[in-house]
């Protein structure tokens, strides 16, 4: 194992170097076409009629006033959905357009198309909908008691009678966080001349969108082509369909291209959020601090429809104990149906919620044992050769848990008092807090999550690599959400083929097979793995064709001289290989949740240092450092970007990011009141990249991009607890919680 400095570089453009992203300059100059920029001369604008209540019967729906407006071409309702009026990746249960009843705030009821955006919005306002309001179910415990459960999952391992000498219990809550991607949902659909349609819209997995769109439109698969579109972030929010079917319906109905761009409020209303959680925990350890038994009960608020909740719930249970060994585990979780905004995938996918609870528990245990909390973690750390506490799965791949803990622990700590610069104090520009009103705290946390898809899912990625006289083409349906997919695929192809000129072409669903989702920290290993293997085959064939021993941009070499230029090699006959790459099989666990549902894991650790103004309850993060297990760093700069961004997303959950709900309605569906950390809230982050190459990712790379979001939240809260002595069992921590008044 080596702990690499982040600026380690190898050859420019190749694996290991901090290659600049090709889309970086166009994005900063405003030249990059995002989904919200797509337009056409003949297009109409779409708009959506949304429910203002979280639960109601639709007692009247009258579209006539909207149709009467000049410039309005279509007003479509549930009756107009040509196929199945239901969407969903796992269970198709969320209506394309609400029929008879609405079950969450902002649910789409009708869509309109008009000559311009203003007219479309006016038409949406003109649709008459009357409601009979019903009492929404917004309390998670109440929903659970009523048996409104989409999925339950249990993990039972070890001896039910085993107990430790020292025990701590706790109850924890996580509020509803939003992905808050800067780019809102947007897209455009074009009808073809034969009843089919092309749609370009935000997505994390165009092939799974395609399956659902085909069902909803009642078309044959080949009649629908789903194209990738430029995206300003996703973080899980694009895993479920938003406006795709609406766009297609309007385009097919009007015979014209139709464009939609959601405004910020619609964006908040239309995509899934991170599950709010309530968690009850009991940890038992022996006198030396070794975990003997963990009991956990987790309730996740799934909202009105299934979405990806079953998978999120299972993850919350799989990682209920965290990156620690424990022989006896009794954990159960429930994804509860409510009328709160729908929940689904968000960076960390269930592992975030549990980590907040089990790391708080580890700190409580350390206090109870009178032990250093970092030592307690090192003592229990889960590593290669150990078994995951909940499932009993043997960890076969590298898992440098101790290394990430040690790496963070050994980073220097700066001065232990704040300076006089008010911008560096709690309250920032508000000038609320003199330096002598501040107390400092340090907190520590470790997190774990699975990589790629689990539980026996047939997880694969297709890629096609073509060598022509002009260079290399990489074809993939993997989605670039802004994370740097394009750069990594270029680096991998360049390194395998020795050719610098690499174009990554993001194909639509008719041109290439699925790459699987850009989620679950999986694409560098999966799409990257497919490109790696396809490129290797291209190289083999190139060498075979010219009987050479090396390949570069100059052509094929033998014994130190070029024997065939690329033109000669493949000018008239490109070399092309397509690969379907699968990771090793996983399996569904048994009824006790035991087995080997995962292919691989990654770990990360954070140390947060905070200054707190206890009297006003304000927090200033002084610094937050991180160490991250990445297998092998293919692009160190890109890794640092993911660590810093992910860390700040966790910081946001720790101290400010939450959808405020009232009877299921979101009161802060805007960036005035859904607060994200600003630059002044973002402290210095020192990131340590821990490299211990894995066996299956290209060049030993492992996915990791969700991890920085997982352990940062508990580290920050631990630091606030250390500073204030308050229990703080809920995130986001609000000033009133620190002050101790509601």
């Amino acid at each position, binding site marked *: 194992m080596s702990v690499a400095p982040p600026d380690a570089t190898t050859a420019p453009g190749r694996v290991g170097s901090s290659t600049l992203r090709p889309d970086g300059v166009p994005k900063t100059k405003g030249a990059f076409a995002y989904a919200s920029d797509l337009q056409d001369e003949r297009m109409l604008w779409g708009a959506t009629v949304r429910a203002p209540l979280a639960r109601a019967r639709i007692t009247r729906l009258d579209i006539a006033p909207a149709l009467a407006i000049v410039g309005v071409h279509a007003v479509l309702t549930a009756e107009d959905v040509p196929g199945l009026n239901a969407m969903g990746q796992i269970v198709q249960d969320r209506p394309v357009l609400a029929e008879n009843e609405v079950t969450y705030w902002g649910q789409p009821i009708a869509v309109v198309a008009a000559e311009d955006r203003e007219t479309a919005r006016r038409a949406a306002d003109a649709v008459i909908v009357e409601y009979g309001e019903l009492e929404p179910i917004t309390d998670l415990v109440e929903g659970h008691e009523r048996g409104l459960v989409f999925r339950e999952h249990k993990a039972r391992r070890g001896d039910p009678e085993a107990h430790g000498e020292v025990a701590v219990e706790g109850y924890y809550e996580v509020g509803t966080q939003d992905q808050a991607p800067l780019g809102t949902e947007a897209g455009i659909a074009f009808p073809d001349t034969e009843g089919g349609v092309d749609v370009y819209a935000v997505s994390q997995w165009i092939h799974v969108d395609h399956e659902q769109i085909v069902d909803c439109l009642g078309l044959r698969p080949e009649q629908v082509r789903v194209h990738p579109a430029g995206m300003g972030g996703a973080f899980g929010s694009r895993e479920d369909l938003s406006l795709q079917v609406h766009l297609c319906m309007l385009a097919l109905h009007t015979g014209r291209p139709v464009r939609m761009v959601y*405004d910020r*409020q619609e964006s908040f209303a239309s995509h899934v959020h991170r599950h709010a959680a309530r968690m009850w925990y009991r940890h038992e350890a022996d006198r030396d601090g070794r975990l003997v038994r963990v009991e956990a009960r987790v309730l996740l608020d799934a909202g009105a429809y299934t979405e990806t909740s079953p998978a999120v719930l299972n993850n919350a249970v799989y990682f209920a104990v965290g990156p620690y060994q424990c022989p006896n585990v009794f954990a159960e979780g429930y994804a509860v149906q409510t009328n709160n905004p729908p929940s689904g995938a968000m960076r960390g996918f269930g592992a975030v919620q549990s980590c907040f609870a089990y790391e708080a528990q580890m700190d409580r245990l350390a206090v109870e044992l009178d032990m250093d909390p970092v030592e307690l973690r090192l003592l229990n750390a889960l590593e290669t050769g150990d078994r995951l506490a909940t499932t009993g799965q043997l960890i076969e791949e590298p898992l440098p848990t101790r290394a990430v803990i040690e790496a963070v622990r050994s980073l220097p700590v700066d001065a232990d008092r704040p300076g006089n610069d008010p911008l560096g104090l709690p309250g920032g520009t*508000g*000038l609320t807090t003199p330096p002598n009103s501040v107390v400092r705290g340090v907190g520590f946390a470790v997190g774990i999550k699975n990589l790629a898809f689990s539980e026996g899912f047939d997880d694969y990625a297709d890629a096609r690599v073509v060598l022509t006289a002009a260079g290399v083409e990489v074809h993939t349906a993997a989605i670039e959400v802004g994370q740097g997919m394009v750069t990594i695929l270029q680096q991998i192809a360049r390194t395998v083929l020795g050719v610098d000129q690499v174009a990554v072409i993001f194909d639509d669903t008719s041109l290439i097979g699925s790459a699987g989702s850009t989620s679950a920290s999986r694409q560098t290993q999966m799409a990257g793995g497919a490109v790696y293997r396809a490129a290797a085959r291209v190289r083999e064939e190139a060498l075979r064709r010219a009987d050479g021993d090396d390949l570069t941009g100059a052509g094929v070499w033998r014994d130190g001289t070029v024997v065939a230029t690329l033109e000669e090699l493949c000018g008239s006959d490109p070399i092309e290989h397509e690969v379907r790459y699968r990771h090793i099989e996983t399996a569904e666990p048994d009824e006790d949740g035991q087995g080997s549902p995962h292919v691989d894991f990654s770990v990360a650790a954070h140390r947060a240092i905070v200054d707190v103004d206890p009297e*006003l309850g304000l927090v*200033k993060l002084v610094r937050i450092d991180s160490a991250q297990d990445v297998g092998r760093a293919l692009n160190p700069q890109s890794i640092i970007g993911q660590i810093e961004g992910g860390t700040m997303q966790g910081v946001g959950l720790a101290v400010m990011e939450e959808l405020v709900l009232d009877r299921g309605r979101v009161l802060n569906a805007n960036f005035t*009141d859904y607060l994200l950390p600003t630059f002044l809230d973002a402290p210095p982050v020192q990131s340590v990249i821990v490299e211990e190459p894995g066996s299956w990712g290209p060049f030993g790379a492992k996915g990791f991009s969700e991890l920085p979001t997982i352990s940062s939240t508990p580290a920050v809260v631990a630091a606030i607890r250390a500073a204030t002595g308050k229990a703080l069992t809920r995130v986001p921590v609000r000033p009133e919680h620190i*002050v101790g008044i*509601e």
Partner: protein
Amino acid sequence: MDIDRPRSLDETLAAAGEYPDATLLAGGTDVMVEVNFRTRQVRRVISLRGVADLSEWNGTRIGAGVTYRRMELGPIPALAQLARTVGSPQIRSVGTLGGNLGTASPAGDTHPFLAACDASIEVRSRDGGTRILSWSEFLTGPKLNALKPGEVITAVVLPEHLPARQEFGKVGVRSAMVISTVSACVMRDEEGRTTVALGAVGPTVLRAARAEEMMSAESHPSAEALAEFSRLVSDEVRPITDHRSTEAYRRHASGVLARRLLERCLAA
């Protein structure tokens, strides 16, 4: 949509008199948010940006068109402090004093300063001439002010002598670019006369009269006097619970913030 671009105050008053329903547009940082959220229908706009008269700042007379950026760099300490807390650099470079009064949000960050120093608001119209209103006459309720149709805010007039000891503070959930949970301004003159005004804790900005009276009588306030001042402030504010904070926290934070600002005044 019609847009008037007056070049002088007279042209502005003429246009506002002619079209009393028109939207006056200064920096647009409130107007455009309302347009985008579709809570404001705009049929006609009178753009104030080209009206140089409105941007004049002569000592204690500050034109309605003065931006936060200028207040931030200006000579009045508490005004500079509050200006720095507003929005982002982009907002501060176009957002204006007049716009903050036009919107009359209970959380408007200029208001505690104006209330603490007993500023007046000068408004004019083509037909009604000039009216000078005290801050409390001008700000009449949440998002409500005393402007009559056709009237334009021309300036804010501060008293000739402002206490040198003046401090502003604002509590919010993040370090910058945040709407006030509580904002406050405290001033104390050479004789010890103390004023304290608080924002976001009532339908409009308010003054804590009992706290002021009590503190104005203290020539060398003791720790107990400071605690009493803090308690009186907490007592006098009238906050509500909403999606940003709770009544209890706002009440508590009002007292803490006011006390700390006073301490800063006393230390200066």
